[in-house]
C-alpha cells in the first residue's frame, strides 16, 4: 500500500520541503504550475513503489534534462520518483530513463512556484 509519507505533501510546510529537496538536487523546472497534476504525481509514485510502473515504455519517452539540470520533459516523473525514493539513473534496462539535450530553450522557474498546491 502507498505509504502516506511518500505521497504528495498535504501541508504548506511539506510542499516547501519538497521544493527545497528538488532544488538541492540541482534540478530546475521549465514548466509552470498550470502543467502539474497532483493526483498524477501520487499515482506515478505509488506505481513506482508497487513495482507497477512501466519503466520500459517510460524509457521510450525518457525524462529530458537541459545542460544545467533544467527539466525539459518528465516533470511529473521526476517528482514522483523523488517522493518514492527512486533514483531514475539507476533503473536497470536497455534504455536510460534520463537523457540530456545540449541546449535549453525554455523559461525557467523555481520548484516552489510550480509545485501543485496542497489540498
Amino acid at each position: 500500500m502507498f505509504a502516506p509519507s511518500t505521497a504528495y505533501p498535504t501541508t504548506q510546510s511539506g510542499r516547501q520541503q519538497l521544493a527545497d529537496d528538488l532544488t538541492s538536487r540541482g534540478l530546475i523546472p521549465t514548466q509552470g504550475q498550470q502543467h502539474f497534476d497532483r493526483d498524477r504525481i501520487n499515482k506515478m509514485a505509488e506505481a513506482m513503489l508497487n513495482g507497477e510502473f512501466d519503466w520500459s515504455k517510460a524509457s521510450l519517452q525518457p525524462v529530458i534534462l537541459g545542460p544545467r539540470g533544467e527539466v525539459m520533459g518528465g516533470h511529473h516523473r521526476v517528482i514522483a520518483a523523488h517522493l518514492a525514493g527512486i533514483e531514475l539513473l539507476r533503473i536497470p534496462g536497455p534504455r536510460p530513463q534520463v537523457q540530456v539535450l545540449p541546449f535549453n530553450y525554455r523559461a525557467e522557474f523555481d520548484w516552489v512556484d510550480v509545485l501543485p498546491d496542497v489540498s
Partner: protein
Amino acid sequence: MGFESFQVELKGDANTFASKGAFGDRFPQAKPDPDAIPLAGSAFFIVDDGLHIVEIEVSDSTARMSIRFTLCHPGSIIQAFLNLLQDLIATFDMSARIRDDVRVEHSGWYSAARIEEFSSIVSGYVANRRSEWIANFGPEEVAANTSEVFRRIVLPSCLPKIKSMAGTTPDVGTKANRLATVEPT
C-alpha cells in the same frame, strides 16, 4: 511531458462518463494508444485522421481528459485539434482550459458557450509553441505521437550517457531563439 507537445485539459461532472469503456463507446474514433505509459485510473487513446495524431488521456475517477498533439505536426494540426476539441466538448458537455504556461487571464476554464473565444486563444499559443519547436528542432513536419517524436527527433539530439541528474554537462550554448515568454500572437 510538455516541451514536445501542446495540451488542453477538459473536465466534466460525475455523469460525464461512467467508465473508461463508456468513453470509447461514445467516441469511437478514439482508439487505444499502445505507446502510452500506463497509469492506474487512466485510459489512453489516439485519434488518427491520417494527417494528424491527437493523444487523449481519460481519467474516469475525476471526469477529466487531457488531449495533446506533438508540435512537429504540420500547421493544419491547429484546425484539426480545435475541431476535435469542439467535438469532445459537445459530446461530453465539458469545459476546457489550456494546460500550458499561459497568461493569467487565459488560464481559466472555458465552457462550450465560450468555445470560439477559447479556440482563438488556443490558436495563438499553438502558433508560438510550434515556432519555438521549429527553431530548436528544425522544420521537419511529422504527424507522429509522442513516442515517435522522441525516437525520431528528440533522442537523436541528446548527449551520450550521463552519470548524474543535474549540471553534468557543459553548457554548450542555447539555440538562437531562447524564448523567455510564451505570449500569444
